[in-house]
């Protein structure tokens, strides 16, 4: 594990953002954060191929999570995407339609989501 895994976490709730940041940092990930889809898109365009996984909230101003997922799947198809939703199942369904790899419902257990991330980034790591 010489190369740290790189995450982009997007949520318009600063508390969630900092909690996730602290947690993933302590687990050895390199983490960047963005407060909405537009800020995230600019980071991604700036550093294409830098990130391994995107974790995004769905309901956000300007570019929503669903919008971000659609754009990312087209422009950066290698990037794995986890969508988090707290607003019933409408946005969640739209996120699946936009081909998010995983859709999780809030509240989210941090250890669960870390498992999901590592499964997505290192598929079948343990059987060579």
């Amino acid at each position, binding site marked *: 594990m010489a190369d740290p895994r790189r995450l982009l976490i997007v949520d318009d709730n600063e508390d969630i953002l900092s909690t996730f940041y602290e947690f993933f940092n302590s687990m050895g990930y390199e983490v960047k954060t963005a407060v909405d889809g*537009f800020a995230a*898109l*600019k980071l991604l365009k700036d550093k294409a191929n830098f990130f391994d996984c995107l974790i995004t909230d769905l309901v956000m*101003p*300007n*570019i*929503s999570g*669903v*919008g971000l997922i*659609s*754009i990312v799947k*087209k422009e950066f198809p290698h990037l794995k995407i986890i969508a988090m939703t707290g607003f*019933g199942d*409408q*946005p969640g369904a*739209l996120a699946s339609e936009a081909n998010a790899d995983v859709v999780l419902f809030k509240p989210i257990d941090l250890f669960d989501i870390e498992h999901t991330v590592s499964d997505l980034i290192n598929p079948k790591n343990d059987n060579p």
Partner: protein
Amino acid sequence: MSTPLIGVSKSILKIKELISHVANTCLNVLITGETGVGKEVVAQSLYAESVRSSKNFVKINCAALPETLLESELYGFEKGAFTGAHKKRQGKFQTADKGVLFLDEIGDMPLSLQSKMLHVLQSGEFSPLGSDQDYKTDVWVIAATNHNLEDSMAKKMFREDLFYRLNIIKIDIPPLRERKEDIPSLIEYYIRLYRSEYPENHGSKPEPDILEKLCQYTWPGNVRQLQNCIKKQMVLNSWEKILDDLPREHPDLSPQIQINGQSRESYSLENHEFANNRPSIISEFVDLSTSSEKLFEDISLKKIKKMASDRVEKEVIGFVLDKVGWNRSRAAKILKISYKTLLYKMSEFEVSPPVK
């Protein structure tokens, strides 16, 4: 040529940047903001910057048409689909194929049409009225509203699933009073535009002290209101007069509308773009001092429209009759209505010659 998005404020610059990032995604866009803030200008800019700019930009106003007409305008109809459908007609979804469909005032779309709209957005297919054939359509949907759709959803007047499907990209345009920095550049732009359109007009630019006052004004009608002032200036050439004529806020309104004691609600009503500068006229038709429940029950646009137009009609009829010495057939000709209609209206509005 469509209007460029003028402005130097942070919010307008951010909107411009957002437009350039999403114009080629063809993701559904929802544009919100008060009346006159420039929702249509933003929709046009999105279109102009997209690869679809060589195709159609088709606009439909969901508030202006009655339900059945709106439906047939959107989806078209087959010959004989309903009485009066003598000829097959293409709907906007078809005209806008490969281009943009601008759904203006989407917040006013009747619930009954919202589910069909949702279906088309999901599947990209629709069928004209009276047809059992499905047509594919590839439209970029840009919707706009000055309603708060979250409120409409809470009141069950707007479908949640439709909201989330439209709200993929959300562009919220702040009212002009929250971005006063844009006022000078808007004035600059429109004065230049009107000078080039009507070189014979000589309205001058505002002096710094006037400009300061223009920037301090709250502009309830936003850019449209400012634009109208500039148009007036081209003819009157007197900013003093224009400033004098601007409708002022009514500080006496807030204590009148006490909505179940919730001051926040009354604040938002007071600041609402229409309520704001016309409380006096509304109060002529409904009693604003009653409780909110009673008030909202009394407010019916249809009813108020009828009351208002009756009042104006009555006044105009009386005015004309007076001018022609109560010669009814002459008055009917002048009013461009039939003699019978005039008599009917005179009795309905109780218009009668003054007793001598």
